[in-house]
């Protein structure tokens, strides 16, 4: 019996804080990475490339929402405000001051983090669904402000000047989508790494703890409000990066589009469908929903404009009824069980 206990203690001590992924998952990941890298060289259809670029961008946005809602449990329904801040920052810096979008992206992320502090400090004290309501209203108000603001083009927005200099310096590629493909892939990988790192960091632990039980977290000495604001800053900055990138991709922005409530809602759908709070869920959600909306647009033409929304709606109902923890949980539970049993 005492040796049993000693062995048990030994095993418990050796227990990693996070289980290692099984070998087949690593292999699958390597194959997936190779496919993603080779994709634009093998598949030259610009539409297929465009769809992938959108998947990457939406994956970034869904990961952003995943940080505040999935990891920290704070449901934001106004995430488009950060997307718009990122979009407008590169737009204004380029059209008004001729500053390169590479700097614009960083400034946009900083401004979004600042906005997250300004919005978060008063609203993240609210419990339950009040934070969701507050962000919904603030998101709409920001859109209205930008639509009335003449200096930034009011309702008609901004057109970014086309440049003929160095495409990489100007972040404008007029002849090919391949550079956009790799850049958006890189941004998606970065966002993925942020969430991966965050989930394993002490900050991520604390966020997940306060998500599960804010009172218990506070009683253990975790400064709940401060941590929520920090998560909101990270989330906002990620969203702004996607907004900046998107603007460089389409080279036009207007408040109707970049502050659209559709953006705020779609990031929620993608994350929830894939699996909120998980590492792969947001990417899975983006990979499912972006093609759905792009292809339905082609198949049904302009009459099919709302078909994708109807399918989204049906998906959400199905997920809520049968898989409230998201599609990823179909596999995750099995992987975990296999990893846990020696």
């Amino acid at each position, binding site marked *: 019996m005492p040796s049993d206990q000693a062995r*048990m*203690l030994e095993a418990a001590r050796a227990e990693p*804080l996070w289980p290692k992924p099984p070998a087949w998952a690593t292999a699958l990941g390597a194959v997936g990475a190779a496919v993603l890298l080779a994709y634009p060289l093998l598949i030259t259809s610009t539409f297929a490339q465009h769809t992938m670029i959108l998947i990457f961008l939406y994956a970034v946005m869904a990961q952003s929402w995943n940080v505040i809602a999935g990891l920290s449990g704070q449901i934001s329904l106004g995430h488009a405000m950060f997307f718009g801040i990122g979009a407008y920052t590169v737009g204004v810096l380029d059209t008004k001051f001729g500053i390169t979008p590479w700097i614009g992206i960083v400034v946009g992320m900083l401004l979004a983090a600042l906005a997250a502090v300004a919005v978060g400090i008063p609203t993240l004290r609210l419990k339950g669904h009040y934070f969701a309501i507050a962000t919904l209203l603030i998101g709409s108000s920001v859109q209205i402000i930008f639509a009335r603001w003449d200096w930034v083009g009011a309702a008609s927005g901004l057109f970014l000047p086309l440049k003929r200099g160095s495409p990489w310096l100007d972040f404008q590629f007029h002849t090919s989508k391949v550079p956009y493909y790799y850049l958006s892939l890189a941004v998606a990988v970065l966002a993925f790494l942020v969430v991966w790192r965050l989930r394993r960091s002490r900050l991520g632990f604390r966020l*997940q703890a306060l998500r599960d*039980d804010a*009172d*218990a977290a*506070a*009683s253990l*000495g975790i400064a709940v409000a401060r941590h929520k604001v920090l998560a909101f800053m990270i989330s906002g900055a990620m969203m702004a990066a996607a907004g900046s990138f998107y603007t460089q991709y389409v080279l036009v922005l207007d408040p109707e589009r970049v502050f659209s409530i559709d953006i705020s809602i779609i990031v929620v759908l993608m994350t929830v469908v894939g699996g909120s709070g998980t590492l792969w869920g947001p990417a899975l959600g983006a990979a499912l929903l972006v093609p759905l909306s792009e292809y339905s647009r082609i198949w049904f033409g302009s009459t099919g404009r709302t078909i994708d929304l109807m399918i989204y709606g049906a998906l959400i109902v199905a997920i809520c009824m049968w898989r409230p923890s998201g599609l990823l949980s179909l596999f995750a539970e099995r992987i975990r069980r296999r990893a846990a049993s020696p």
Partner: protein
Amino acid sequence: MLLEVDKLEVAYGDYQVVWGVSLNVDAGESVALLGPNGSGKSTVVNTISGLIRAKAGAITFGGTSLVGQPTHARAPLGIAHVLERRRVFPHLTVLQNLQLGAWHPTAKAARAETLERVYRLFPRLGERSAQLARTLSGGEQQMLALGRGLMALPRLLMVDEPFLGLAPQVMEQMKGVFETLKGEGMAILFIEQNVRVALSMSSRGYVLESGRLAIHGPSQELLASPDLRRIFVGG
């Protein structure tokens, strides 16, 4: 005195639930805070740990005043609050839950040893360290909640209804753990509805009735007191 609560008044909005309650816990002492459902026991401990703000009165711990201190600043002073109904983090593993208990620098420095100590007290937790907390049984979750509290190396352990819904065998094991902790000199404040159990484990007791302190005294005297029966069963 380790913990001193003086004329505490607590209200939820306009609705006052605690009226002038005073109590104290000395270092190494175990004390029971008793009372029927809704008498304000949990409100008092929640105010001590800062989850609720006091309306009036003083709370001092180890000589420092807790009034005005944010909730998260109180755990590092040496107060561990094991909340009612377990409240473990369901989507984190047992080990992750325990690690979160060792939060402030002193506790973190000793984390490996404390973890071992908790696993010794509750071998069950060691066996299940990689499992998600929500997959544990009720008794195991209670062990985890208590273990998580111990990870902070508290000077005072406040446990809210630790025996609620436990199987008799698990309850005996928990009592054994509390005896061990008492033997190690930890101050414990039991919040209980189970009067007999709570008084058998403590040297003194306070009994609340409708938010007011009704009687207090040595546990043996309280057990024999006719007032105790009146408060709990009426008549």
